């Protein structure tokens, strides 16, 4: 690639390296593997930089990181990305958990407990939660990155949050007693 294009690529992409690594880290759940994925993603991104038509480079880069992470997992830990449809459907179809007063005590949950709860989410819910809560992306950007309709983003995000609430509730209860 010509140095000018490479320079523009570096200026567009490097400011979002933390976001790229954060997403990769949450998807593959390992620090070394995440570096592997980010490196792979940047090589892919550099190769396809011609196809980037300006605008916000962050969703564009994160989509490539996400695909690189799924490709990486697919080759090494296929069980993590082959989320059976029925499991996904079951996750979405579960009724709302009743509102407990203890839910508010989630505030007291430790960082590591929240991290563990996010890490335990099935990957489809996990990526929605990470992109929304940690990267604060819009539903439209999340839909582009994860390659699903906005309605699916809404469902997965909502279900992911409900699963988090369920996972954190026992800790909250213990913290109260």
């Amino acid at each position, binding site marked *: 690639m010509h140095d000018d294009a490479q320079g523009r690529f570096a200026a567009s992409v490097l400011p979002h390296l933390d976001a790229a690594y954060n997403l990769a880290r949450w998807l593959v759940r390992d620090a070394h593997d995440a570096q592997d994925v*980010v490196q792979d993603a940047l090589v892919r991104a550099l190769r396809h930089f011609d196809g980037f038509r300006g605008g916000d480079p962050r969703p564009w880069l994160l989509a490539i990181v996400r695909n690189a992470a799924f490709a990486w997992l697919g080759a090494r830990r296929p069980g993590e990305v082959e989320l059976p449809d029925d499991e996904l459907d079951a996750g979405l*179809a579960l009724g*709302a958990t009743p509102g407990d007063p203890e839910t508010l005590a989630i505030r007291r949950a430790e960082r590591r407990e929240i991290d563990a709860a996010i890490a335990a989410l099935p990957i489809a819910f996990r990526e929605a939660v990470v992109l929304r809560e940690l990267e604060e992306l819009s539903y439209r950007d999340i839909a582009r990155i994860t390659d699903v309709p906005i309605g699916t983003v*809404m469902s997965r995000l909502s279900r992911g949050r409900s699963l988090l609430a369920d996972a954190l509730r026992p800790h909250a209860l213990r913290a109260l007693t």
Partner: protein
Amino acid sequence: MNNDDDLWLDALLDDELDGAASLALQRRLAAEPALQKRLDERRALRDAVRAQATRHAAPAQLRAHLEAMLAPRVSAPASADAGATRARVPLRRAAARPWMAAFGGACVATLCTLVAVDPAALGWHRGVVAASLQAAEASEAVSAHTRALLVDHPIEVASSDQHTVRPWLSARLNFVPPVVDLAAQGYRHGAHVISVFVRPAGSDAANGSEALSVVRGFNVIERTQGGLAFCFVSDANPHELQALADLVTPLAGK
């Protein structure tokens, strides 16, 4: 209350509802305390996750590696005359980094920095007596070595595959320096950095010649072998430096 309610409450929290939908939900919230309570719980959860979940920052070495990968390259002179041009190619001692191992290659990479040097600036021209040339060259090599040590990200090519390193070099030089993988010899990134400079040797250079010197505290080995002149510079001890030189360019009869 049902699952769809959560979905709409989340969308409201995320500021993703259009005006009409938002208004309709606000009316319901005003009329249904249970729904309002549910909204408060969802907000508390969201706030807790946002406040406490770990945002993993890119490790410094990953950032350094990618910045180096994307840094503008120094190009060798286009009209290079083999007799007059000196391309300085310090071959860093191979480095083993954890993330490199994770990339699936062998642990050790040959790390190269390439700096094209204006031959005129070095006083390089034919006819200079060999001894003073050698002294000037050793001194310049030590200066280049110390400059390289000051660079934050001196690695231009990090690879364990000589088929990656060699084409990278040959694209920038008008000769082919040897590329050796020192993994088996146990070379690792450590306290000592060794610069290896290579240039085509003059036609009058004695093949197999070697000179050792100490310049400003650095050990310098100059060696001519196979039509190439090598200069090794490091603060490593002379024996270690000699061992590396033997690996890169074994002298005939050794």
